[in-house]
Structure formats: structure tokens, C-alpha cells
């Protein structure tokens, strides 16, 4: 039988559906525009599947409660927008250091500060990577449609569980509030990854000891019978804090390499008309929809233009961009900010191709025509 479970919903609502399908059973957060539908949907749906929702007293508490819940073995999520994302940063760093799997949805809004609360922006690209202090890896994924909001939320949970790390769904208000019809897949069609747990009879369990051939340690849930210590301080294999240069170096390096060594597993992207593209439009999230339309119009005019859409924003699809930069004459980066991801493109391309930028900070979207005229200008 064909699955006809087709529903009209917002990106924010699809995030809730995806999260519950992925196994999310705890949500701790604080309401903020334009992410509120994620909290509201979670409050409505979680108790129906035996999960828990709590509206905390602030954004910091929302992130903290999410981490606390994840430690008991539950899949946990929080959602926020720009100003709230800033407040969560210290605890996101904690989750990175203590290796607690969790998902943070950031439905980006215009800024700085409270900016234009209901207007779209892609201004948190660098905050997603560098918002907290110290060196740490991050995974950030940006959906471009309501269907992808569902699918990529599932993927965020899977990556969080697999690599024991906080994962950011870096959405924008365009996708968050856009309504599209999507087919909700059956549970059997969805790949679910759960964190590795130690064996029940593992009496020598060391919470932060990585077994040969693994990139992260197995994670016991609090209450499962493996008592251990969790801290944001540099810790040894037992989890106990230590003031050792050697231990600090080994731990911090492993946190980086567990992501760096698995970039091919983590990075995804979409390409359109890239085979012979002389000009490549690089855009992500909601902006990529305008880019796709502009590139199609350009092709109709006989212009050799392609589109590259990073779906994984961090780690950046460095290899792929380097590759097409060798062939293309120019790259146009379109994003809803003054120029953030374009910096990463410039770093990767290193002058092998000309780079142009369309940035917009007036709270409106970048239109297909704006991208098309830039294409015609530079080709």
C-alpha cells in the first residue's frame, strides 16, 4: 500500500515531527520568535508518546535541562533563535566537551540584537561555529524545504548519537514558517541511530575510554547502573577532572578528530547543472530556493551556470568547493547577511576562482531576479 500520509505543514512543525520520529523524548526550552512552533508542537506531541516537555525559566536553563535529560539516556532537543542561541552557547560548549548528544534548532532571525524578530536572516553561520569558547568541532545542518526540515532533524539526532556531540539544525525563518505539503514517512522508512551503550555487566566501565576502532566512548545513561562523573573540565578516562597537559591535549584533539576524520560521512550537499558550469551560485537554506530559480532562468538564456547548495554548513564541504573552484570562472555566494559563509568559501578557494557576494540585511529575502542580474553581470 502506498503511504498517503501527506500533510501541509510549516518547517517548524516538520522539525517536531522529525524529532519525534527520530526518538526525541525530551524538549527543554524557552519560547522565542520565530522558533516558537517548535516548542508549541513539542509541548503538544511529547506527552502523547510518553515524552516530556518543559518550558524553562530562560534559554540557558533550556539548554542545561536538555543536556541533563540526554544524560539519562533520552534523546533531547531544544529550539531557539539568534538572541537565545547566544545565551545557550556556554552550555553548547559544555555538551561538546562532555560529549553529550543533543540537538539545538536555531531558526535564525534578523539581527544583531533583537533585530527584526519575524524577518529571515542567515546571520548565525559564524555563531554556530564559534559561538562558544575554546576549540571544539560543531555539526550544523541547514534545510532548504519543509520536507528537508523533517529529514534533516532526523539526521541531526543520528549524527548527535553517533558522534556524541551537540548538533545544530541551522534553519532560517524562510523555511521555518514556509508551508509545504510533505509525506511523513513510515517509521520503517527512517534510519535511526542510537548511542552505543556499555554492556550491563561491564564493571570496569570507564566513561571516557575509547575502544580500539571507535571514535567515541560508549555512553551509559544515569540510572543504568554505571556510576560515573561528567564535567566540563578536562577529564581523564574515568571522567574525573585532571590538570594535565597531556590529558588535555589528547582529549581536545580527539574531540576535533572525531568529526574531522568523518567528514565524508557528515557532509552532504546538492548540485544542479554543475557539469559544465562556468559560474556557480553557492547558496543554502531558504536562499537556495531563489538561487535554484535564478540558475534555471539563466540556463534558459543559455548561460552556463550551476548551483551548489551546502546542506551541511559545518563542517564546510571544503573538498567539493575546492574541486569546482578549479573549473569555474566565478562563484557567487548568496546569503542573508553581510558576508559570513563567503569568508569560508574565500578561505577554501584561495584565489583559484573569482568570488562575488550577494548579501542582504534589510530583513527581506534575496529574490531570484537579484541573483540572475548578478549572474548576468559577472558572466
Amino acid at each position: 500500500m502506498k503511504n498517503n500520509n501527506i500533510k501541509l505543514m510549516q518547517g517548524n512543525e516538520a522539525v517536531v515531527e522529525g524529532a519525534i520520529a527520530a526518538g526525541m523524548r525530551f524538549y527543554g526550552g524557552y519560547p522565542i520568535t520565530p522558533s516558537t512552533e517548535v516548542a508549541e508542537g513539542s509541548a503538544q506531541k511529547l506527552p502523547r508518546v510518553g515524552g516530556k516537555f518543559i518550558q524553562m525559566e530562560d534559554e540557558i536553563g533550556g539548554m542545561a535541562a536538555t543536556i541533563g535529560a540526554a544524560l539519562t539516556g533520552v534523546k533531547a532537543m531544544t529550539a531557539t533563535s539568534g538572541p537565545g542561541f547566544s545565551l545557550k552557547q556556554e552550555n553548547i560548549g559544555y555538551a561538546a566537551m562532555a560529549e553529550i548528544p543533543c540537538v539545538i534548532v536555531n531558526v535564525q532571525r534578523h539581527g544583531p540584537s533583537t533585530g527584526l524578530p519575524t524577518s529571515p536572516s542567515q546571520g548565525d553561520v559564524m555563531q554556530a561555529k564559534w559561538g562558544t569558547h575554546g576549540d571544539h568541532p560543531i555539526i550544523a545542518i541547514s534545510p532548504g524545504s519543509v520536507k528537508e526540515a523533517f529529514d534533516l532533524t532526523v539526521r541531526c539526532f543520528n549524527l548527535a548519537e553517533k558522534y556524541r556531540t551537540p548538533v545544530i539544525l541551522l534553519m532560517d525563518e524562510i523555511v521555518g514558517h514556509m508551508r509545504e505539503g510533505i509525506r511523513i514517512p513510515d517509521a520503517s522508512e527512517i534510519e535511526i541511530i542510537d548511542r552505543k551503550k556499555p554492556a550491563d555487566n561491564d564493571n570496569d566501565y570507564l566513561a571516557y575510554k575509547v575502544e580500539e576502532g571507535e571514535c567515541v566512548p560508549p555512553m551509559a545513561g544515569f540510572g543504568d547502573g554505571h556510576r560515573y562523573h561528567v564535567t566540563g573540565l578536562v577529564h581523564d578516562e574515568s571522567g574525573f577532572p585532571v590538570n594535565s597537559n597531556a590529558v588535555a591535549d589528547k582529549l581536545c584533539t580527539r574531540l576535533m578528530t572525531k568529526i574531522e576524520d568523518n567528514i565524508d560521512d557528515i557532509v552532504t550537499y546538492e548540485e544542479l547543472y554543475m557539469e559544465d558550469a562556468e559560474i556557480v551560485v553557492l547558496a543554502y537554506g531558504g536562499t537556495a530556493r531563489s538561487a535554484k530559480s535564478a540558475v534555471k532562468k539563466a540556463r534558459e538564456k543559455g548561460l552556463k551556470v550551476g548551483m551548489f547548495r551546502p546542506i551541511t554548513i559545518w563542517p564546510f564541504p571544503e573538498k567539493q568547493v575546492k574541486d569546482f573552484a578549479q573549473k569555474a570562472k566565478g562563484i557567487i555566494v548568496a546569503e542573508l547577511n553581510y558576508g559570513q559563509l563567503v569568508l569560508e568559501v574565500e578561505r577554501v578557494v584561495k584565489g583559484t576562482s573569482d568570488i562575488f557576494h550577494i548579501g542582504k540585511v534589510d530583513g527581506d529575502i534575496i529574490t531570484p531576479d537579484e541573483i540572475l542580474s548578478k549572474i548576468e553581470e559577472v558572466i
Partner: protein
Amino acid sequence: MDKLPHIWCPGCGHGILMRSIAQAIENLGLDKDKVCIVSGIGCSSRAPGYMDFNTLHTTHGRALAFATGVKMANPELEVIVITGDGDATAIGGNHLIHACRRNINITTIVFNNNIYGMTGGQYSPTTPTGDLGTTAPYGNIDRPFNIPELAAAAGATYVGRATAYHANQLIKLVEKGIQNKGFSLIEGLSVCPTYYGRKNKKGSAVNIMQWQKATAVDVKVAEKLSPEQLEGKFLIGEFKNTTAPEYTEEYQKIIDRFTKER
């Protein structure tokens, strides 16, 4: 034993307070696997590292927010929070009053040493007015919080206070706090000879504990004393012992509504 020596200074009262909590858990016969001890950042907050339970050392001021997530996600766990005066009432003040308001079944023990010890002796929200700290070189002009009064007013259902000197009383208060189905707060007045004591010429750790013994008055005794007799004294004992709906149980009722409908 490989974790010794602990990080606390000689004469610090925190070891006595930590031991009191461990004794209370032992006296109640709790299953170690089902006990979770959460702390923030500061001298007090290093205690869970020395305790053989599920232990969580979090970010500054956020112990109660982490603990709320732990308790909500797994109400079977006996969640105990160890926090300091700065951790609980300065940076974490908002989490404290909201945990009290929710009446979530968590027992919080505030290790109050009246100073920021780990950062080197700055004044805290419980440093008495007029006392010295490295950031109050001319005397602290802030008015201190009375933590039990704050917690009781915010809705905590069990509230008590004892001192490092009154360790046996502290054990009893922690036991009753754990047994209370709701949010319990017990203030443990600690001893900081290194920063608070030295800066304010309070003498050795023994001198400070002698002061605690001489100055503390049990709430029950205080009821019979005049304001004049209570001048310069502070109260210890059980301040509040009431009941109110517990948060995780109330949420479970919502879940049950759906499981029954099926």
C-alpha cells in the same frame, strides 16, 4: 583514593558538609545507582567528583537547570544538588527561584561560605554588609540574601539550615529533605578560613566553628526568645515543612491521560 588529596583548603568546612550528605544517603539506604548528584562551579561544586554516584559537574550557576532535566527525564533518580552561595543565588538565582516555584522533587544543599573561594575571595550575595572581599576592599555595601527565606518565599516545600559545626543536625535535615516529595533546600553554613576568615580577621577554622556554635539558635528555641535576645544571632533548624503537588508527578498525569485513552 586516587582522587586524594581533594582540592579544598585546610580548615574548609565543605568536607564536613559533603560527609553529612553521604551519611544522610547511607542512613536512608538509597540505591547508589539511583542517586544523581549535580553541582555547578565553585569550591562546593567539586564535591560530586569525590562521591560514588551518578555525578554531574556543570556550568556556573546552572546546576539546578541541569538537574531539572535529569529529574524530568528520569524521575526514578534521587536528584541532589550541591551548590555554593554565588552559584545558587547570584548567577543561578533565577534557576533557584523557579525550581522552588515548580516544587520539583530535588534536594538542594547550598554550601554557603559567604565568599567566592575558588576565584580568590570576592564578595558574594551572602557576604555580610560591611565585610571585606577582594572586590569589596572598602567594605561590602550589598545587603545579603537570607537563602532559606528566599527559597521558602519562592515555594520550596522543605527548608532548613545547619552549620559545619552542627553536622549531625545537617544530616537529619538532608534526610528529611530527600524524603520530602518536592523541592527541598538546606543551607549548610560552611567555613572558609582561607579567604573569608583571613580577610575579615575571623581567626582559624576552629575559631569560626566556635562562633557558629555560639551564635546559632534553633528555630524552635528562638520562638521563645525576645528580639533583644536574638540580636546578632542566626537561626538554624527546620524552617518549613509543607506539601504541594510535585512537578514530575503532575506531568506524569498528563502522559497517563493519553496512555489510558489508547
